[in-house]
C-alpha cells in the first residue's frame, strides 16, 4: 500500500543541541504507529515538524505523495489532512464544545456568519457518527479531561483529517478512558485514517499499534513490529539498558505508631464543577507512604489544594504534630515542612517563563545557604542548582534555559528537584508525580519517594495510576465523591475490593 507519510532524514536543531538527528519515518495508509522514547528524546519535536509547527533544518517530507516545502504552516498541514492533538490541550475554556470545534474553520459553516445552531448540529452529527457522548452546547471548562481530549479529536475530525497525531493522549486518562479512546482510534482506523500516537506506556504501544518507532536522544534507535517484540526489548532499546522496577521493600502496618499528620473532617465549599471535600478523615505516618486512589474528579484536586494552603477549609482541621491548623494558608503549610508536587505542572508547579535556576530558587528563597539579607548568593545558588540538575538528570543540564523550552518530562523533574531536596522536608504531598514521564524517569521518581520514606518523611501519594499506588504504598485510601471511603493496609487489599470502593460500592 502507498505511504501516507514519508519523513526522510529529518534534522532539527535547537541551538547547538540536536532534537531530531536524521530521523526517517514512513507510515502506511490506515496504519497505527507509536513513537516511544525517553523524555526529551525528540518525539514531540518530530511531530511538530510534520505538523508545520517547527521548521526542519534538513530532510524531506511527503504527505500522501505530495512533497512539502521546507517551511509550511500548520494551516497548510491541516489542508493536507494532518491533525495534531497536543500533549497539553489547546482549547478555549470559556467556549462551548461546538465553538471550539468550529474555531478556525468557520467558513465551512457560512462565509459571513457564525451560525450557532448550525454549528451545534454539525458537531452533534459528528459526535453521534463516532459514538462520542458529548453535548456540543456544554462549556469546555466544565468537562472532565477525557472529554476535553475528545473535543480536540472532534476538531481534527471536523477538518476532515486523514492523519491524526496524538501526543501523549493517555497520560491524563484513567484506564477506562484509555480503553474508550483506543476503541475510538480503532474505529477511525477502520474508516481508513492513519494514526501516529506518542505514549510512554509500553503495554499501550503493544495494544494499539502495529509498529513502533523508538527514539533515543534524538536518533531513531529502532523500529519494531509490535507482534515481533516484547515490552522488555522496547524498554531496553529506549534507554539503552534494562530497568529494575522500584517497589516498596516491605509494606508496613501503621497501627504500631501514632500518625504524624491527621486530617480531621476536612471540608471545602463547593465552587464551580470541581468536587469539593466532604468530611475527609485521613491519617499519615512518618516513614510510610499513604496512597490515595480513586477515579479522577473525586476531590483529589481539592485535597492537594487544601494541603498546599491555596484553598480555604470550610470545616475540619489539620493536625501536624502538636499543631492544629484550621486556617490553612500556603505560608503556614510551607512552614510546617509540607512540600507539594501539584498535578498541573504548567500552572501550579512552574513559572514557565522562568529559567530552571529561577524556578528552583523560588523554593529556596528563604534558605540561609543561598540567601543573605534577602540577596541571592549567586555562586552558591548556581552550584546547588546544577548539582540538582545532575541528581535529577534534568536535560538539558544548562540551568539558564527557560522551562517552557523543555520537554514535558524534564519540566516535571524540575518540580521534583525543587520540592524534594529541601533539608526541612517533613511531609511530601505528591499528585500524579509520574504523569508524562518515561520509564526511566518514573523509576527514579519512585526510588526518590522510597528514599524519603526510608528517611522517615511522611508521604501522601495521590495518583490515578493504580499500579503506582500499589507498588509504593504502605496504606491505601480511596477517595470517592469528596470523602475517604476506606483507609487500610495495602497488603491484602485486593484489586476487586479497590475497584468496588472506587466505584462507590462497599464490601459486604
Amino acid at each position, binding site marked *: 500500500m502507498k505511504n501516507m507519510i514519508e519523513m526522510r532524514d529529518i534534522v532539527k536543531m535547537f541551538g547547538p543541541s540536536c532534537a531530531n538527528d536524521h530521523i526517517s519515518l514512513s507510515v502506511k495508509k490506515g496504519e497505527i504507529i507509536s513513537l516511544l522514547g525517553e523524555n526529551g528524546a525528540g518525539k514531540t519535536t518530530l511531530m511538530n515538524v510534520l505538523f508545520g509547527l517547527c521548521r526542519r533544518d534538513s530532510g524531506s517530507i511527503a504527505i500522501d505523495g505530495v512533497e512539502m516545502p521546507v517551511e509550511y504552516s500548520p494551516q497548510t498541514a491541516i489542508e493536507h489532512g494532518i491533525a495534531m492533538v497536543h500533549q497539553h490541550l489547546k482549547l478555549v475554556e470559556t467556549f462551548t464544545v461546538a465553538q471550539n470545534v468550529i474555531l478556525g474553520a468557520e467558513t465551512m459553516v457560512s462565509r459571513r456568519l457564525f451560525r450557532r445552531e448550525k454549528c451545534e448540529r454539525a458537531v452533534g452529527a459528528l459526535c453521534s457518527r463516532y459514538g462520542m457522548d458529548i453535548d456540543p452546547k456544554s462549556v469546555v471548562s466544565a468537562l472532565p479531561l477525557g472529554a476535553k481530549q475528545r473535543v480536540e479529536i472532534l476538531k481534527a475530525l471536523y477538518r476532515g483529517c486523514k492523519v491524526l497525531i496524538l501526543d501523549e493522549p493517555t497520560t491524563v486518562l484513567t484506564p477506562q478512558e484509555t480503553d474508550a479512546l483506543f476503541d475510538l482510534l480503532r474505529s477511525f482506523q477502520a474508516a481508513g485514517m492513519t494514526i501516529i500516537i506518542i505514549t510512554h506506556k509500553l503495554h499501550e504501544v503493544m495494544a494499539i499499534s502495529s509498529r513502533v518507532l523508538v527514539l533515543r536522544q534524538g536518533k531513531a534507535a529502532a523500529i519494531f513490529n509490535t507482534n515481533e517484540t516484547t515490552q522488555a526489548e522496547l524498554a531496553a532499546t529506549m534507554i539503552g539498558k534494562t530497568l529494575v522496577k522500584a517497589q516498596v521493600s516491605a509494606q508496613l502496618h501503621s497501627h504500631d505508631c501514632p500518625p504524624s499528620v491527621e486530617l480531621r473532617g476536612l471540608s471545602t465549599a463547593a465552587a464551580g464543577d470541581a468536587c469539593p471535600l466532604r468530611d475527609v478523615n485521613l491519617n499519615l505516618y512518618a516513614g510510610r507512604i499513604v496512597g490515595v486512589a480513586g477515579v479522577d474528579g473525586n476531590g483529589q484536586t481539592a485535597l492537594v489544594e487544601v494541603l*498546599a*494552603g*491555596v484553598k480555604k477549609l470550610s470545616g475540619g482541621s489539620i493536625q501536624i504534630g502538636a499543631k492544629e491548623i484550621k486556617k490553612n*494558608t*500556603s*505560608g503556614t*503549610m*510551607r512552614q510546617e515542612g509540607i512540600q*507539594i508536587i*501539584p498535578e*498541573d505542572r504548567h*500552572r*501550579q*508547579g*512552574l*513559572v*514557565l*517563563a*522562568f529559567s530552571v535556576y*529561577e524556578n528552583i*530558587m*523560588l*523554593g529556596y*528563597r*528563604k534558605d540561609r545557604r543561598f*540567601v543573605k539579607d*534577602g*540577596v*541571592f548568593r*549567586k555562586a552558591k545558588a548556581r552550584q546547588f542548582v546544577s548539582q540538582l540538575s545532575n541528581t535529577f538528570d534534568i536535560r538539558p543540564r*544548562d540551568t*539558564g534555559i527557560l522551562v517552557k523550552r523543555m520537554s514535558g518530562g524534564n519540566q516535571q523533574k524540575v518540580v521534583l528537584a525543587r520540592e524534594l531536596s529541601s533539608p526541612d522536608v517533613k511531609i511530601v504531598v505528591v499528585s500524579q508525580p509520574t504523569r508524562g514521564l518515561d520509564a526511566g524517569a518514573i523509576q527514579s521518581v519512585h526510588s526518590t519517594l522510597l528514599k524519603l520514606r526510608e528517611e522517615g518523611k511522611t508521604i501522601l501519594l495521590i495518583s490515578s495510576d493504580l499500579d503506582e499506588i500499589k507498588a509504593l504504598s504502605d496504606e491505601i485510601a480511596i477517595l470517592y465523591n469528596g470523602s475517604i471511603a476506606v483507609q487500610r493496609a495495602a497488603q491484602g487489599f485486593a484489586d476487586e475490593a479497590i475497584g468496588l470502593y472506587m466505584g462507590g460500592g462497599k464490601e459486604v
Partner: protein
Amino acid sequence: MKSKLSRMQSGTLRELGRVAFAMLFAFAAGAVFLMAIGSNPLTIYGAIFAKAFGSFDSTLRRATPLMLSGLAIAIPLQTGMFNMGGEGQIIAGALTAAVVGASDLGLPAGLHAAAAIAAAMAVGAVLSGLPGLLKITRGANEVVTTLMLNSIVSYIVTWLVLNPFKGTDYSPQSKKILPAAEIPTFGKLDFSWGLLIALALCVLTHLFFRSTAKGLEMRAAGAGPAAARYLGINNKLLCLLAMALGGAVASMGGALEVLGGQHAYFDEFFTNYGFDGIAIAYMAGSHPLGIIVTALIISMIRVGALAISRTTGMSPYFVTMLQGLIIILLVTPRFAGTVLSLVRRRFPARKKEEGGAA
C-alpha cells in the same frame, strides 16, 4: 557560563536592534510625511537633533522624571499590574514637593529636600496603592481606576494651586521653594543631582529584580501566579506593594523636577510626562537599565520638538506623531524580521555568492 553570557548579550543586542530599527523606520516614514506637506525633512530633523544635542543638559534634565515615569510602569508590570496613573502621580508628587519645600521646617539643606521627596513619594504611593487595593480586594480593574484617577488628581491639583497653595495672583503656580529644599544643579548646567538619583534608582531596580528574593517573588507573582501561590508567595500583597512603589517612583520624578529645576509647581507643566513613561517602559521591554536609554531617546525628541516650532515653524506635535510611529512599529511583532526577509528575498543572488565564497 560563557555560552550563557553570549546568549544574554545576543538577546539584549537583538532587543536594541529592534528598537533602533523601529526608530529608523519611524524617522523614514516621518520624512515621507514631511515631504508630502512640502517641508524638508533634513531641516526639521536637523533642528530636532541640533537642539537635543546642543542643549544636552536640558535633555538630561527632562530625562530625569521620564526615567522615573518609565520605572513607575515597569515595576508594577513585573507583578502583572498596570499603573496607568503616572500622569496624576507625577503632578501630585510635584505639588507636594513644592508645598513641603516652601514651608519653613527649620531643616538644613539636603534634609529639607529629602523630606520633600519623601512626602511626595508617600502621596504617590497612596495614589497608586488605592487602585491596587481595590484590585486585590474587590477585583476592580486597575487600568481603569488608575486612568480615571488621572483626571481626578489633575483637577484637584489645579484647584489646590489656585487656592490654598497659590503662589502668585497672576499665574497658576505655587510658592517658590526655600533654598534649603533646592537640589543643586551641576554648575550652570540645566540638570540637577536628581539625575543621579534617577539613574541610581534604575540600577537598583534592576538589581532588586535580578538578585533579591523579594524581586524573584514579585516576578513570579506576575509570570506564574498559580505556581507562586503554591510556593507560599502572597501574590496580592506583592501586587499591592509593586503598585505603591510604582506610584512613589512616579511622584519622585515630579518632585525632582520641582526641587532641582522649576523651584515651584507650575500647573500643566508636566503634561504627558506620565504617558511618555508608558512608551519608555514599553520600548525598553520594561528592563530598568533599558529605561535609561529609552528615556534619553524620548527626552531628546521632546526637547528637540521645542526647537522645531521656533526655528522651522513646524508644529511640535510632529514628534508626538513620530513617537507614536515608533511605538506602533515596535508593537507590530516581527515587523523587523518581515522586512528583513523581504529584503533578503529580493536580493537572494548576493546572499548565495557570499555563502559560496565562505
